[in-house]
């Protein structure tokens, strides 16, 4: 996804997420381990940093859960 990234991001998985089908793609840190096609819940701003599992990690969007049922 992005081999050339800032060192402080180390090796956390980065995934493309969209709010709705065809929506604007954004990059999120995957703290849960989801697969393409999953509908997930993301958290932003300062909470996104600690949600990655590393204190003060440089992220402003982190996936925190997979939604069981959601019609996109």
């Amino acid at each position, binding site marked *: *996804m992005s081999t050339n990234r800032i060192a402080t991001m180390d090796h956390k998985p980065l995934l493309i997420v969209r709010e709705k089908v065809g929506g604007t793609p954004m*990059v999120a840190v995957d703290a849960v381990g989801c697969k393409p096609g999953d509908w997930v819940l993301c958290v932003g701003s*300062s909470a996104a*940093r600690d949600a990655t599992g590393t204190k003060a990690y440089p992220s402003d969007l982190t996936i925190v859960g997979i939604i069981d049922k959601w019609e996109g």
Partner: protein
Amino acid sequence: MEIHQVTHQLILTSRLDDLGHLPVKVLKSVSGGTSAALDPIGCKVGEWVFTIANSAARTASGDDRYLTDLTISGIIDNWPQDVDKD
């Protein structure tokens, strides 16, 4: 983290010391908006990158003293993805 394409570099001869000496790049985001971000990586014009905003932007720039709210944090390997052809 938003995805952008680098359009050009911003030259700011007089700037606050706490802005540091990292280059500032002008970016066009996938959703069409324009923004300026600190660039600790040194990416080139035309490259697709993603940025980090809010308080994490300062950590991402490598030094919490830097007065930034948007920092380029990585160059995306293959973008736009083939699935994105509309």
